[in-house]
């Protein structure tokens, strides 16, 4: 805990400031030191990792369409993408051939687990909004 933070907490403990004021001061302190290490050399605070992917389908106020609310754990996505490594060689050749025929010159064998991990990690910032005349679809991580 750094010195300024401790001072704020001391002031709160002695009743010099209210809890709201303490919260505001701590927030201001955090803004002043973005990404800075604490006085004790601790790691910079990182953004909380998303744990779920949420898919929401809502009607556009007409009340006719279905409402869908799906929450998928990120861990399930991680495990799911690892299934790609179980694709047998001959099946992979077929898939690669089909992809090439459809104008996607991509080799599935090039996908490595570490690449997939990186892709999943980047999903944290993913937000997809589809606004149709009947339904509204939102995909985001939380």
């Amino acid at each position, binding site marked *: 805990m750094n010195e300024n933070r401790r001072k704020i907490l001391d002031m709160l403990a002695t009743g010099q400031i209210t809890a709201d004021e303490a919260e505001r001061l701590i927030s201001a302190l955090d803004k002043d030191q973005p990404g800075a290490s604490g006085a004790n050399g601790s790691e910079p605070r990182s953004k909380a990792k998303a*744990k*779920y992917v949420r898919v929401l389908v809502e009607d556009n106020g007409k009340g006719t369409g*279905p*409402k*869908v*609310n*799906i*929450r*998928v*754990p990120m*861990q*399930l996505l*991680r*495990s*799911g993408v*690892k*299934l790609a*490594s*179980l694709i*047998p*060689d001959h099946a992979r050749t077929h898939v690669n051939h089909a992809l090439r025929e459809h104008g996607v010159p991509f080799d599935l064998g090039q996908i490595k687990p570490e690449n997939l991990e990186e892709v999943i990690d980047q999903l944290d910032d993913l937000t997809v909004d589809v606004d149709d005349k009947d339904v509204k679809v939102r995909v985001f991580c939380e």
Partner: protein
Amino acid sequence: MIPIASTVRIRNPRHQFWIPLFLVWLLLLPVALLLLPLFFVACLVIRVNPFRALSILYGILTALKGTDIAVDDGPYSVLVRIH
């Protein structure tokens, strides 16, 4: 940890089930053990490492925890939640 329970809620007609998955896993365990040799043979035929396949399948099973599916279509609605 593998999921231990699941809630299924259906509206119209209104039903709610609480499924103790840990009992389902216990019931399926002997079947899984019986099918294990077949699984290993199948993996060897398609040239996939059976241990890796098992580890991935177990990973998927454990990752199911927290899955939540709710579909609401007019008078009908279904909710499936895995705990």
